[in-house]
């Protein structure tokens, strides 16, 4: 059993230190502080949030610089940590548009009847198939949702408690029935393209839906495993509406801001400009961290919100670690695949084929109207360059949120895929970044004649900036790919999926752990539950809500 001192003598001595003030680090620290621990979160940047951040880079405009929409944030945590009282408001948005090369569009209305007729305009069969598709994705979603706020089971342990956890998973799968189980196994291993082909015949509808299967993932729509990534984007909810997405009012920084306020309300500290260089280990136990500037913070518990590669290969001495951990950390799949443009606009752009007053303007915009086109965008990634015809997930949050742009002006957030971590084997250069930016602006301009003229400011982030500024290895937004080999008890790798590191007192709480990325805060909360259990402290972390 670990001991900790509630009263420490030195200012730099804590019961627990969390490295990284991303949403999971803040969540983890908030729960530890609420349990009575003296906690500090050390943040490398002068601002908090990690990839859940709002910044004003051009006066009057607030960007969600990395993550940009919100659905997966666990409602149990938002309620339990009183995030609304600390300033968080998530406003649901709905719908989307795929602009087609022939000048037509596919409008995915959030209202079922309009969506039905719009789908019917493209294909009568596909319009009907939607109900089958919705039921099927909901079945798969319901399987995984109960496990988001639980640690994954350890399938190799025969201890009774562990077996009980495993049995819970077994029962959930058993509940699906024989046919359901077969469907589930297929679902978790197949490509999003193959999955969609089972329902739809129309290129643009398949392409519109396939985007969720590749976002943040260095795989193409025809790659096995991408169907699960689609599910990952469907398993969240806004106020119980499973699959809904929303905007955090004030940008995603509102999430980290509310978490930070909750943490501070429990007496936790956040120390910015504190760049941890080393997790100190002595005698097989963690003793604290050393900053790159030489400062040291002592603690018997160190929690890393960083991804598994950074944590084990960068912050820890490989000699302190079991050989398998070093090996697995090196082989951990965390390939960068995406970039981001945040754009301040002087007005609302006109998009070809879509009335400016349409309900669909508040939806997510895409410009790929077929699966083969999406796959060719991935081909560029394989060829170690950015997509010349990039897949975009574009939104204009200022149509919903009056705080992110001056009145009458607009803010556009553009998620871009694909962008490889290296260009032809070398680091990204400024010229590469300019080329990447141009391919995105060109893509948008193809469908919006006045867009370019409205640009007031543009922040462009390639995997280089995502790695250097945010700290995401290779710029992978999920801290590791969400493929079946890296999920549940295999996340980040076998034997280390219950948030405990290989050294006593060392824990992981980032998206590299179960249940993965997407601004859920579940990894941070689940890790806190384990830490408190190890300390024999009462649990203060909520259980998940039940769907039924």
């Amino acid at each position: 059993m670990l001991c900790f001192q509630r009263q420490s003598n030195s200012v730099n001595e804590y019961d627990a230190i969390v490295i990284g003030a991303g949403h999971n680090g803040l969540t983890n620290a908030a729960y530890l502080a609420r349990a009575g621990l003296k906690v500090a979160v050390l943040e490398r940047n002068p601002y908090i949030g990690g990839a859940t951040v709002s910044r004003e880079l051009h006066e009057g405009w607030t960007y969600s610089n990395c993550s940009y929409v919100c659905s997966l944030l666990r409602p149990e945590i938002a309620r339990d940590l009183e995030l609304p009282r600390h300033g968080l408001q998530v406003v649901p948005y709905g719908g989307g548009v795929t602009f087609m090369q022939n000048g037509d569009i596919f409008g995915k209305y959030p209202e079922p009847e309009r969506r039905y007729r719009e789908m019917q305009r493209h294909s009568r069969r596909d319009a009907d198939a939607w109900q089958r598709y919705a039921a099927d994705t909901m079945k798969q979603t319901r399987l995984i949702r109960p496990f988001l706020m639980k640690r994954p089971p350890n399938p190799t342990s025969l201890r009774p408690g562990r077996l009980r956890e495993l049995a819970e998973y077994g029962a959930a799968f058993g509940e699906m029935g024989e046919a359901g189980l077969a469907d589930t196994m297929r679902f978790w291993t197949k490509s999003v393209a193959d999955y969609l082909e089972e329902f739809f015949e129309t290129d643009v509808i398949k392409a519109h839906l396939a985007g969720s299967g590749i976002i943040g993932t260095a795989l193409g729509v025809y790659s096995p495993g991408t169907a699960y990534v689609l599910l990952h984007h469907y398993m969240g909810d806004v106020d119980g509406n499973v699959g809904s997405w929303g905007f955090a009012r004030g940008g995603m920084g509102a999430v980290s801001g509310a978490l930070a306020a909750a943490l501070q309300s429990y007496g936790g500290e956040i120390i910015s400009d504190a760049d941890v260089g080393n997790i100190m280990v002595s005698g097989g136990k963690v003793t604290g961290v050393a900053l790159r500037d030489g400062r040291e913070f002592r603690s018997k518990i160190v929690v890393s919100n960083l991804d598994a590669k950074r944590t084990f290969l960068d912050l820890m001495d490989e000699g302190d670690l079991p050989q398998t951990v070093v090996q697995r950390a090196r082989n951990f799949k965390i390939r960068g695949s995406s970039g981001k443009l945040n754009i301040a606009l002087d007005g609302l752009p006109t998009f070809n084929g879509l009335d400016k007053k349409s309900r669909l303007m508040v939806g997510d915009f895409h410009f790929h109207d077929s699966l083969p086109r999406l796959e060719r965008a991935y081909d560029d990634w394989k060829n170690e360059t950015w997509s010349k015809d990039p897949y975009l997930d574009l939104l204009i949050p200022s149509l919903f949120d009056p705080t992110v742009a001056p009145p009458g002006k607009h803010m556009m957030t553009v998620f871009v895929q694909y962008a490889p971590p290296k260009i032809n084997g070398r680091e990204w250069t400024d010229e590469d970044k300019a080329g990447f930016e141009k391919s995105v602006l060109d893509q948008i301009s193809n469908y919006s004649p006045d867009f370019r003229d409205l640009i007031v400011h543009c922040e462009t982030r390639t995997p280089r900036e995502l790695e250097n500024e945010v700290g995401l290895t290779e710029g992978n937004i999920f801290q590791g790919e969400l493929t079946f080999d890296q999920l549940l008890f295999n996340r980040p790798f076998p034997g280390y999926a219950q948030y405990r590191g290989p050294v006593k007192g060392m824990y992981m709480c980032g998206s590299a752990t179960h249940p993965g990325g997407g601004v859920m805060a579940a990894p941070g909360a689940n890790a806190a539950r384990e830490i408190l259990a190890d300390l024999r402290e009462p649990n203060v972390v909520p259980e998940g809500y039940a769907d039924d």
Partner: protein
Amino acid sequence: MNPHQDEPIYLPTAFHSRQQQHNLLHAWGGWNGYLKPEAYTDIELEYFAIRSTTAVFDLSPMNKYRVTGPDAEAFLNRVLTRDVAKIKNGRVGYCIWCDDAGQVMDDGTLFHLGDNDYRLCSYTRAYEWLYWSSLGFDVAIEDETGTVAALAVQGPTSCTVLTAMGVTGLESLKPFGILEVSFQGQTLTVSRTGFTGDLGYELWIDTSAGEALWDALFAAGEPYLIKAIGTEALEIARIEAGFLQAGVDFVPAETAVRRGCTRSPFELGLGWLVDFDKPRFNGRKALLAERDAGSRYRYVMLDVDGNKPAHHSFILQHGKVVGTVTSAAWCPTAKTNLAFAQLELPADASLTGLVAEIYYERELRWNKVLAPCVAIDRAPFDPPRRRQTPAPAL
């Protein structure tokens, strides 16, 4: 290409301009993508129009699929559980269809309009499923939902009203029979069908003639106290008549998410619609197995003691919960408190001692009654005029 603009969420039906004139409550809802009146003036008066005069209900939003081609009968025999060959030309059949697991996808009516020419009306959108089921058959399937307008004309004076409107030969039309007449140069199809359990007809016509049909009907019906009714009044009538409503009394299998929430025909009391003499139809194997092994659920109609409708009630037997109510209503004509219940009881289990646990509120005071129930075989409302031929005139 013009920019894409949002159209209204619910579209008007062919009768909308006329419905607007009658709909003093402005109580509109959505049905299958179309605007539907929930009530026009007063639900009770609308209900009594069904039972004492003539009620008119717009059923245009119902899904309608035209099935034609040399294999039409063979195809429908594969899709539907009953023997389609027994539904002769000029006749309508109530039918259900199942998925391969023998779970009910929907119920509906099949109209045998001509040689190799059928219309299937359904609650769910079935075009895609029909398409997949049609592979290997020489048939064409056309979705007529938006092109065929339909009115239900129901009640004791309905035959008289339609005759006054100029429909000839109606009095000799048998229940589930189809008659084609000419109406202002268009073909008007009249079927002796409905969802009210009363004497009644359904009119089918091209949407372009919708308003003219409505006007002629109401002009002829005025002396006979014709009245437009909404879905609320129809709901009471259909319960009183013992008719199931898809999406209320069972979950259509294709939309179901939770395992075990769907029902087989046997579990809905619709075993009589399953014809195992047919060598092949969707769900046959699973249904055969269920016939031999027994069903999990049992559908019953309950005569509930007292006058409090047993909405969503638990049904108890000897103090144990054995099921729940799916539909309930006080039936104003039959003067019965009726409930449909799904019971988790074997087919041969005794149905004595059933009790409905009913909660109701009066001025914020909640009351609970444990109302004894008696399982009944027939719907409490079943007047002779429903099947008399010639149909009784006023």
